[in-house]
């Protein structure tokens, strides 16, 4: 992996809420154009790391660099321009419930870009079609959509501004295996066509096998391993063994 460009670089990050830190000196790199799967037990702090990188949680110590600039050192304007270059898919989709699917996708474009109504509509429809949604979904409100469709609309919204990095928080949770496999495939295709870097928090072993270029494992507040799936499978670490070699892990290969 040497010589590849890093888009996110986390160094000695400490995040905590009470006495004991949730993340204790975490160090992690995400390279350009890769899909990084981020795993760990429930409550290990996977989402905490993601939310800290995108600035929703405060950090206690350490540095986070995105596109080579330290987020903490940036002013309001520079920060905004970095934020425009990433898209986030939240676990529950977090679609705005008072807007239709199409309006949800248009929302970030409307805020940041000065486009004609026609172009705005065409691009939003293009994004919805790229995530595999048909025309009849456009006018519907999130409450009228199924779980899988909500995730797709949310992905289209995350991609609205053509970001360089996409953060996905458990993208396949709550989807049936067929839907989850299709979603993995979709992420793979979009990552390829749009040249995205993807940071994916997941629990889904199938996703890890199918789409992730590299996997990072969080345990007891630290990243205990990072590398391709083969490295994970070969590891001697007891947690990794039980995670990847357990009953549910073996099913996959």
């Amino acid at each position, binding site marked *: 992996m040497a010589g590849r460009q890093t888009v996110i670089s986390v160094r000695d990050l400490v995040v905590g809420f009470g006495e004991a830190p949730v993340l204790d000196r975490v160090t992690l790199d995400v390279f350009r154009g890769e899909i990084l799967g981020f795993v760990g037990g429930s409550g290990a702090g996977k989402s905490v790391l993601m939310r800290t990188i995108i600035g929703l949680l405060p950090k206690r110590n350490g540095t986070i660099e995105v596109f080579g600039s330290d987020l903490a050192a940036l002013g309001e304007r520079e920060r905004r321009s970095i934020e425009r270059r990433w898209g986030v898919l939240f676990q529950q989709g977090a679609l705005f*419930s*008072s807007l239709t699917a199409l309006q949800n996708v248009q929302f970030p*474009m409307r805020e*940041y*870009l*000065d*486009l*004609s109504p*026609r*172009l705005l*509509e*065409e*691009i939003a*429809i*293009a*994004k919805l*079609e*790229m995530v595999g949604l048909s*025309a009849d979904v456009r006018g519907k*409100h*999130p*409450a*009228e959509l199924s779980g899988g469709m909500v995730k797709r609309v949310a992905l289209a919204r995350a*991609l609205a*501004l*053509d970001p360089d990095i996409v953060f996905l928080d458990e993208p396949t949770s709550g989807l049936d295996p067929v839907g989850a496999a299709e979603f993995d495939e979709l992420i793979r295709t979009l990552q*390829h*066509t*749009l*040249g995205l870097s993807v940071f994916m928090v997941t629990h889904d072993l199938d996703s890890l096998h199918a789409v992730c270029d590299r996997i990072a494992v969080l345990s007891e507040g630290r990243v205990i391993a990072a590398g391709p799936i083969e490295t994970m499978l070969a590891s001697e670490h007891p947690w990794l063994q039980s995670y990847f070699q357990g009953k549910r892990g073996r099913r996959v290969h």
Partner: protein
Amino acid sequence: MGVAALNGRVFGERVALAAMGAWTAATAAELESIVEEATRRYEHARFVDIDLARLERLDTFGAWLIERLERGFTDRGLNARIIGLSDADRGLIEEVRLVNRTSPSERVAENRFLVALDQVGRAVAEMGRSLVLLAQLLGALTRAVLATIAHPARLRVTSTVHHLERVGWRALPIILLSTFMIGAILAQQGIFRFRDFGADVFVVDMVAILVLREVGVLIVCVMVAGRSGSAYTAELGSMKMREEIDALRTMGLDPIEVLVLPRIVALVVAVPLLTFLGSMAALYGAGLVCWLYGGISPDIFLARLRAAIWLPTFAVGLIKAPFMALVIGLVACVEGFEVEGSAASLGLKTTASVVKSIFLVIALDGLFAIFFASVGM
């Protein structure tokens, strides 16, 4: 990053267009007009080559605009093609080739008059529907009450007492304060006007009758609708949103019996009590103002009070209270059950709950006024 541009050169019937610079979201607005102009300018050509070799950056926005440029020509029967496509951009261009094949539906110009008529019609139908829903819930509630009377052990005492504390006990301070002030204000205004006629002392009659018959119960109901009715709607609404009500049903429990009955029983008990205490606070406020501001001593105030009112004056206010409580509770629960999936709908229904229940309380008050007048109370 180079500025986005589209250079065109004409060779007889052939036009060579070269896209240059960054065709991205940031330049999309500017590019759109460039693309439109190019489509118009070269409409008489027969062959169009769109050369992408000198592009620096391309994203979905740029790719779509190139696709739109090409479609602009091919739709007019021209021969357009894309050349100089790099491998990195090929996937994106092929992707956008598939999208937006169904043209966006034309917005039909709407007739303002018809829209207004449509809205009025919908509002009337909605009003009718909400009356039906109220009647339905009243029916279901009656059934639950009868079932509870047959098996008193089924009443959820803990829940009822909990709601009684919330809508009664905890509402007491604010209700006492408001009614106290209303009583004081009525007395002050009365003294001010009545003094011109030398009839200061009759202010006691006015305040006593007004407070006991109308103002006490109305103020309490408005406060309760705003404070507790809205809370009921929001609670039931968010329970509905999170499928908690469906969960109750699947466990064989009747949401009316579990959720609605304790809430409405609590209101029907609490509102008359609050009305009584509120009316007393209002009279106390009036008495204080009469004494300090109007020079009417407490002895005279009490004597006038005894002369001005008799038991039915007092009863009129208290008889109305439980009925108004029932209306507030019913409207709050109906609106709560009407909430749909979205946060906006929760807000909408909570507003509707307060507005409707206050309106219905006032309408009911009018009906009671006619009723009491005809029975001579």
